């Protein structure tokens, strides 16, 4: 029993860490631009593909790379996706910065469609096996199984999130980003380079999302061009749940969502006496999301919003 609890907890923490990495990108973009970036799930997908490309084309054989090589591939791939993110912002969202609020959101849908199809054309639409970045060692903890992959994911996610925390809270760049997120016009009046802050957000968000993609692909051993859609929606849900625009909120929301999912899978059939199967765990997640939004529209850790502040003029 204790073993099962430990195993499920580690499962939830693993999935939660991956959700958190992606959710951070949604929440930071929203914080700065008040825009839902529907193309963010594709950064997650691109991360896995970029790492795979680096491994197969540049390095050749995965066995010969070694731990340092793998780390280099990992960071190379996520930084590359970070630059892709900055480029996309310049081309597809920047021209719409003074347009209606719906416009960049829909433009991001176009970006998402183009990226998925682009990868399908280049790499084929079928799922591809992904080499694990970690040895497949298993540990037995009080009867439950914990894999080295899971521990690796937890450590990598922790390092990345700690890095983001330091960047946002302890660096000059972080102050700029936070100032723009607080109020873009005021930041501009104070002489802050708003474009710089936005580029920074569109660099670090996709970078973290790409890291999530690589970790996810090596956890499940598979990747596909459409993998970003489902996980993107989950991470987005997590960001909303925690309070969109809030960085700790995105992390909290991601772990809550992961625990609801893992718990739902394990408990729903037992609690309902077999009426509701595990497939209802997504209904449970969305139901919780809707309930939270109805009671506290700003999410768990978001700034409280009144009905009046939900809408910015010139919505459509």
């Amino acid at each position, binding site marked *: 029993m204790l073993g099962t609890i430990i195993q499920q907890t580690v499962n939830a923490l693993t999935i939660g860490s991956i959700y958190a990495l992606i959710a951070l990108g949604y929440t930071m973009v929203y914080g700065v631009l008040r825009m839902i970036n529907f193309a963010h799930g594709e950064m997650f997908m691109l991360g896995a593909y970029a790492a795979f490309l680096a491994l197969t084309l540049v390095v050749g054989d995965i066995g010969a790379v070694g731990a340092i090589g793998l780390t280099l591939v990992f960071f190379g791939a996520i930084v590359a996706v970070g630059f892709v993110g900055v480029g996309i912002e310049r*081309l597809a969202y920047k021209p719409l910065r003074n347009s209606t609020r719906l*416009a960049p959101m*829909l433009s991001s*849908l176009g*970006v998402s469609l183009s990226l998925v199809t682009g990868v399908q*054309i280049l790499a084929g639409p079928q799922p591809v096996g992904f080499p694990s970045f970690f040895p497949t060692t298993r540990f037995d903890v009080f009867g439950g199984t914990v894999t080295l992959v899971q521990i690796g994911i937890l450590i990598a996610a922790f390092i990345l999130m700690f890095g983001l925390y330091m960047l946002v809270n302890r660096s000059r760049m972080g102050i700029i980003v936070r100032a723009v997120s607080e109020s873009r016009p005021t930041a501009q009046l104070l002489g802050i380079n708003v474009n710089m802050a936005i580029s920074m957000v569109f660099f670090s968000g996709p970078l973290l999302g790409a890291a999530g993609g690589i970790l996810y692909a090596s956890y499940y051993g598979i990747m596909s061009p459409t993998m970003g859609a489902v996980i993107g929606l989950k991470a987005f849900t997590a960001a909303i749940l925690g309070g969109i625009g809030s960085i700790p909120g995105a992390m909290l929301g991601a772990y809550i969502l992961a625990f609801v999912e893992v718990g739902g899978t394990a408990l729903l059939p037992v609690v309902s006496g077999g009426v509701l199967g595990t497939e209802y765990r997504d209904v449970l997640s*969305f139901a919780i999301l809707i309930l939270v939004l109805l009671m506290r529209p700003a999410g768990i850790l978001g700034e409280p919003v009144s009905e009046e502040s939900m809408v910015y003029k010139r919505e*459509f």
Partner: protein
Amino acid sequence: MSAADTPAAAAPRTRRIIPFLVFALAIALLVATPFLPNYHIRVINGLLIYILLGIGLNIVIGYAGLLDLGFVAFYAVGAYTYALLASPQFDLHLPFLLILLIAAFLGMLTGILLGIPVLKLRGDYLAIVTLGFGEIIRIMMNNVDWLTGGPQGIARLDKASVFGIEFARPVEIYFLLLVIVFTVAVLVWRMEQSILGKAWAAIREDQDAARGIGINTTNAKLAAFATSASIGSIAGVIFAASQRFVSPESFTLQESVLIVLMIVIGGIGNILGIVAGAAILILLPEVLREFAEWRILFLGLLMIVLIIIRPAGIVPRSFGPDKLIRGLFGK
């Protein structure tokens, strides 16, 4: 393209030529369709169903200014209403028109049920709750097997028939759709001009001011949700009757997003815009069929470009059906 670019003298003439061209093209297409091969008629039928969906969703998004990303749920309600009441699933075989009425009513009911809890939400928050609602409906359809047949869906639906006339072949469905789309479009357009439509416009422009001048925003919003949902549901019935098969696959989030895109690219808040948007997003992929997945890539890039260069849509709100008619008959 704006009036400022054209020389003042030429302006009235261009203003008349464009409506005439549009009108002539539309009539030509409508008349020619029945003589096309079945495959093409099916594509046109798909286009008409999307126009119907667009007209429905446009009430909430374009008129009342509320972003709904779960519209496909109402479409599903209609489709499954037909599938359950006119198939061997429960061995019920009700007449088509009766089901159409039931579905419109059920759609309205679901619209109000969704509308009541989200009345206090606006903007992105509303979009997200409606998105979650749409996903919940889809997951339910996938899993309540005894009712909906699960992922396999429900097959062998009855042929639609009205007063003994059967609507099963693509051409027959086409005529049925034409009548329904035209009727709904005229009704909705009249609604937009009515006092209720003005209330919607007031809510869209500034809800607090609307409340201030004594508009009952609760009722107006619920009316928008109800009307829009019942049109979505009607579209679902016709979709089910023309496919004679329904499954959850037809009601994904992507579908909702496609309808929103159609409205925004075409011209938000304008029925003519919806027709243009549907024509681009539905017909273009069919026309470019031989380019396989390249056409989807092209479509994605086109979406970005169109939103950047024409933020108000291809046919802006100011060029509504009234302008078209006035242009045709010279005021």
